[in-house]
């Protein structure tokens, strides 16, 4: 298995994501890896190895075969020439006449091929061919031929034609082991075109042998790349699937290699993740159910208490002062408790995503006016409204009522008069029409530190004011209700002082009521 190290990527735990495969992998890194992908690198490595091994084998084979081929030809030629030279009786001193005839005889019996024979003796130059001296014979060979009594040979390439040149000195035998050069040196020049053809054929054969090897190496390279890349692809798919929330995603484990280990580790990690997420969800669901159950359980006693507080209130005037105060306190607190439980119920419905939108097309100005009327705020001179007629929107009247009532109530409690309620429509940045409701007051405004938390549950901007008439859930419920309408709500401060809450709800003319 060829491993390709990845630069700049620390080795982490077993569940390390495949490079660039995960949905969260930054695109910058992905594009860099893509440019020189795993598949390309694997193929390149395979081809390199195949090329080196095939090339080396071919080169060595070629060299050996060529040497053997040439060696045989050379040896034959040299020994034949030597024999011929020895067998020929040379009358010394040599006469130029008749020499060419002898040389021609020698040339005819050349082995393995006819050769051209030259003789050099002092100033005498004779040849079996047309030129008395061959241009192929190098000074090097001349020197070697006179020095070595057994003769020398050299391969020479001239004008693209290879020649074998042999130099053979003739000697006098002066003793059993001693000889004396006679001065006559014979040269044979043989064309080695046939050998060259064979050698060329060898070269082509070697090359032709190596190339299919390379081509054949592509197949296992592709197979190996596929076997590596398929698990990587599976890993990527699985990681993406996990990312989109399907935590039960697993990868099939094949074989026992490193990739199978990786898949195993991934599966294990996914299992652990699924378990912990499952536990978290369960805990969350339990907490929600608990809140909902508590609220339900509180409702029944509250129903009884609330039913009798009116009786207490009505009769308080007839009781003595202390008892009357106690009775009024109980009555007020019961009312608050009832509001708190209602708000808790509402919040737990939002948490359980059980809150539904029962939309109706309503006249928004009319709806706001009714909300103010129902809370006895309609004739309140602390409230100023600017409600242009004719704005109709699909809203859940009950939820919209809660939104407006909470914002106005909040402004009256924590802000300062006058509270202004403005209604308008405007085009949002994306070009769709939105309904805008602004509730502003002239109070001290919201402290900067409190702004980010203003919609949190039970958040109290002023830590000293531990009790307020509201449940502490009003703005959180308002936020949820606005979100349910697909809208947004912002809190801010006016330049001249005072807080402003801005509700934006898209004016969609989509599916109509039942």
């Amino acid at each position, binding site marked *: 298995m060829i491993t390709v190290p990845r630069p700049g990527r620390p080795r982490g735990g077993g569940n390390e994501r495949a490079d660039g495969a995960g949905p969260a992998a930054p695109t910058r890194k992905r594009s860099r890896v893509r440019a020189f992908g795993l598949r390309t690198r694997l193929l390149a490595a395979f081809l390199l190895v195949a090329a080196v091994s095939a090339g080396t084998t071919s080169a060595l084979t070629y060299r050996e075969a060529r040497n053997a081929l040439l060696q045989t030809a050379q040896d034959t030629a040299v020994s034949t020439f030597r024999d011929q030279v020895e067998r020929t009786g040379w009358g010394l001193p040599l006469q130029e006449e008749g020499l060419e005839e002898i040389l021609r005889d020698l040339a005819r019996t050349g082995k393995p091929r006819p050769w051209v024979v030259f003789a050099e003796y002092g100033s005498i130059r004779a040849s079996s061919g047309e030129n008395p001296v061959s241009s192929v014979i190098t000074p090097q060979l001349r020197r070697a031929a006179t020095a070595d009594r057994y003769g020398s040979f050299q391969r020479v390439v001239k004008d693209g034609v290879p020649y074998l040149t042999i130099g053979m000195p003739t000697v006098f035998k002066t003793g059993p082991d001693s000889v004396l050069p006679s001065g006559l040196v014979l040269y044979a020049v043989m064309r080695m075109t046939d050998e060259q053809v064979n050698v060329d054929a060898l070269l082509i054969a070697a090359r032709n042998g190596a190339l299919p090897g390379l081509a054949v190496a592509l197949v296992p390279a592709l197979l190996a790349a596929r076997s590596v890349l398929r698990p990587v692809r599976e890993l990527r798919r699985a990681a993406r699937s996990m990312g989109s929330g399907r935590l039960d995603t697993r990868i099939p484990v094949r074989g026992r290699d490193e990739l199978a280990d990786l898949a195993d580790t991934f599966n294990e990690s996914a299992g652990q993740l699924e378990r912990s997420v499952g536990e978290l969800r369960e805990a969350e669901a339990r907490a929600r159910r608990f809140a909902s159950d508590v609220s*339900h359980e509180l*409702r*029944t*006693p*509250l*129903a*009884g*208490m*609330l*039913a*009798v*507080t*009116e*009786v207490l209130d*009505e009769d308080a005037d007839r009781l003595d002062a202390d008892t009357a105060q106690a009775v009024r306190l109980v009555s007020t607190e019961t009312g608050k408790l*009832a509001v708190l*439980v209602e708000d808790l*119920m509402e919040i737990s*419905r939002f948490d359980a995503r*059980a809150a*539904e939108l*029962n939309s*109706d*097309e*309503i006249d928004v100005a009319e*709806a706001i006016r*009714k*909300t103010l*009327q*129902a809370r006895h705020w309609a004739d309140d001179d602390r409230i100023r409204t600017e409600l242009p007629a004719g704005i109709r929107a*699909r809203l*859940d*009247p*009950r939820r*919209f*009522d809660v939104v407006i009532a909470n914002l106005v109530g909040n402004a009256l409690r924590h802000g300062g008069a006058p509270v202004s309620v403005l209604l308008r429509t405007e085009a949002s940045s994306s070009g769709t029409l939105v309904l805008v409701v602004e509730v502003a007051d002239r109070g001290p405004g919201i402290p900067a530190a409190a702004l980010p938390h203003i919609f949190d549950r039970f958040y109290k901007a002023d830590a000293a004011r531990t009790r307020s008439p509201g449940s502490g859930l009003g703005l959180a419920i308002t936020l949820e209700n606005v979100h349910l309408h697909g809208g947004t709500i912002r809190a801010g401060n006016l330049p001249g002082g005072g807080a402003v809450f801005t509700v934006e709800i898209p004016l969609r*003319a989509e599916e*109509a*009521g*039942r």
Partner: protein
Amino acid sequence: MSRVLLVEDDPFVREGVQLGLRRRGHDVRAAGTGEDGLAALAEFRPDLLLLDLMLPGMTGVQVCRRIREHSQLPIIMLTARGDDFDVVIGLEAGADDYIVKPARPEVIDARIRAVLRRMDDGSTGRPAIEVYGDLTIDRVGLTASKAGRPLTLAPSELRLLLHLSAAPEQVFSRQQLLENVWEHTFHADGRLVDACVARLRGKIEDEVGNPRYVQTLRGFGYRFGPL
């Protein structure tokens, strides 16, 4: 002032609501179970039934269905479960209104009065008996019949029918119907209207899926006719 039968299993709530309503001038009889409540009906002859949804044994929904089989007694559901599902189940069983607990006697009293209010809208200057197709509506006798067969309509259903047919072909939004028929001055939800329309259709229409008398105008509301 009016005779109210309260069916509620929790003694504290029963006592409290009884006390509160009695102070507001109602003649209240209380029963702890649905069975007791049904038994008290014949003897007490209430003008209205306040019915808890969660009861031991027979549930409020079952009691409601049983009563609706033969009686047009106004019924208000008293429920601790304000979730959409529970409300709709209660309404579909034939209740005229619902109150989510906890509620002040003031609110309960207002709802009782609204449900009991005399159904006199549109009765002046019109013939007492109107005929629309197979449907005959008697505005004085406060009855309706279809093809000569009298219909058993719950008070809210009858009031809805009277209100819609008083102005044929006029479209009423759910909000308008809530205010005119149920007298809810604040924003209650349209589920009350939808559930009531569904029940009314079940009684007067030939094909519920293709209503002839009470028609839906998508995005606007409901209207009576055109036939």
